[in-house]
């Protein structure tokens, strides 16, 4: 049996009396794309925050490549191989595109304060090399971004901001990459380009798995291998999109009980 890339078992978090995520199980296999869908406020982003270490789970377990990473701080989880983007993209706006991607390589570079002060040649060489790789990465993501690589990230339009965030996430050479609503604020053309980007990245990096929160049903129908549905913090369905969409519970979650009966 192949080991799953990411294994989430019985994961829960409570904020006071509110159970935001309750006993969620998820399995993400290597080279798989799993979409997480569900109504607004269902707990999808909270689930991401649990997996990436921004919140500590109240109970349950998160394993990456068979290694237990439950409750690790966010920076160690990032180093372990989970990269992510944010719903409202969080770039380092006052830095250049190249700088943004180089920061994404933080866990793949080593030099510290003493290196920088006392062995500047070595530190400098490492950073220059990182900048070269970052430039290559930006070019492979989009020639359009490449042309703007010395601009400040804050000046980018929305679709490019997503691309740069994905490039930054890829820079850490992750095993799992989590995208939180990558298509939000995009038109159909940009969404198509986004799907093409994800497919190309997958083809170039065998073994890389994607966990994607999405609302755009066009993308959900076309891109993922599997779909998991979350409602009120619980997973209510998991499987092929074609099957999942027909499940009464899923239709209820999206449309309400009454409407689902007529659907």
């Amino acid at each position: 049996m192949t080991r799953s890339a990411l294994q989430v078992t019985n994961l829960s978090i409570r904020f006071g009396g509110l159970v935001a995520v309750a006993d969620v199980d998820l399995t993400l296999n290597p080279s798989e794309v799993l979409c997480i869908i569900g109504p607004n406020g269902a707990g999808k982003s909270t689930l991401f925050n649990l997996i990436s270490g921004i919140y500590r789970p109240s109970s349950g377990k998160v394993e990456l490549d068979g290694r237990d990473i439950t409750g690790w701080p966010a920076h160690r989880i990032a180093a372990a191989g989970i990269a992510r983007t944010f719903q409202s993209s969080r770039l380092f706006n006052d830095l250049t595109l190249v700088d943004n991607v180089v920061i994404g390589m933080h866990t793949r570079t080593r030099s510290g304060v003493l290196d920088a002060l006392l062995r500047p040649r070595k530190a400098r060489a490492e950073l220059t090399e990182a900048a070269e790789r970052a430039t290559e990465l930006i070019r492979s993501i989009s020639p359009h971004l490449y042309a703007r690589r010395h601009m400040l990230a804050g000046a980018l339009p929305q679709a490019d901001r997503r691309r740069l965030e994905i490039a930054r996430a890829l820079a850490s050479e992750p095993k799992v990459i989590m995208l939180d609503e990558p298509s939000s604020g995009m038109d159909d053309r940009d969404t198509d380009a986004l799907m093409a980007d994800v497919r190309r990245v997958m083809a170039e990096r065998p073994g890389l798995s994607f966990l994607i929160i999405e609302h755009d049903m066009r993308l959900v129908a076309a891109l993922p291998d599997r779909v998991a549905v979350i409602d009120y913090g619980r997973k209510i369905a998991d499987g092929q999109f074609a099957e999942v969409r027909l499940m009464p519970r899923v239709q209820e979650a999206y449309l309400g009980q009454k409407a689902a009966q007529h659907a």
Partner: protein
Amino acid sequence: MANHELSLAQPRPATGPDLAIVAGVQLGGAALLGAFLLGEKTAVVVALLAVMGAIFALLQLRPGLEERIVSAFRAQRRPALALGVGIVLAYPFFMQGSSYALHLLVIALLYSVLALALNFQLGSANIPNFATGASYGIGAYTSALLALNFGVSFWLTLPVAAVVATIFGFLLGFPSMRTRESYLALVTIAFGIVVHQLLNNFSWTGGPNGLVGIPAPTIFGHSFAQPIEVLGFRLPSQANFYYLSAALVALSILSAKRLHDSRVGLAWNALRADPLAARCQGIDVVWYKMLAFGVDAFLAAFAGTIYAFYVSYISPDNFTFLVSVTIMTMVIVGGMDNTLGVILGAFLLTLLPEKLRIFADYRLLFVGVIVILFLILRPQGLFPQRPRHYGGPQ
């Protein structure tokens, strides 16, 4: 290869105009500073401030001009550096033997070091640290106590004081694990006040009377209390400390540059822009914050040691909360995360109150007005942060 594409494919401009720009800017700046230092009439001082204001207004209105100057300096790095060092070395000879002007220069240079130290935190990482004055004091007191009680030489107290202050800096960094922004600022204010109160109340620090009679350093048998005599020129004894502080500023600039252009500087910048996103890139936010506290304290302690041996008398009132606020203003007015800007801010805010003494009790009011005017002219600071350059000619 990728290397070629990184170094921007620009045709190399002729060196002549670049050299002229570099020399003009450096000599012009030096002349302006000299006139400001030696100007005794208030009208002259105000006129010079107006000239400076006009220059910055011009830079603000014509961004191309600023870019041109920056590119000239970038292309002529070595000549610019050589000329800069030459100017700094020769500067005391043009001060007409005025020990007051040299004294102002020494203080301005020491404040430049302090502002550069704080810039690692405030400018690079956006950590509001109101305790730089306290680190300055810890450095000054450590070295003074070592020299007075154990006869330790100045040169040995320099690193020892820096290490002691760094340890305190790290300790101060501890609360940064749990507090953020305004709350962290409050913690640093409290730290500054605690240090000041302790220095004021311990008997072994001399209490409010401070420490008196700190011996002047010597190097190769030359005491820093003696005037310098070279080639028939006679420089006041302050010149010794001028050169020493200038060397420390050079060291600080070098450290600032190396750290800024490194993985550490980038991590600090990430922390400044978005701490949550920084964590998700694998940056240990707590460690990098504490590191910034440590580096700040290290440099501030160097400045403190030189200050203690320069004035030979220190008291707790040299290291109050107000000192920290002044240093912070220097960084903000000069330009966050820009080495040159921060130094300019330090000079401006050290020299202005001295030169506006004519206004007696109202002078701080005028300093405030001038600072506000400069901030209106250049909202991002006199010299704002500039994007990094990779793979350019080194």
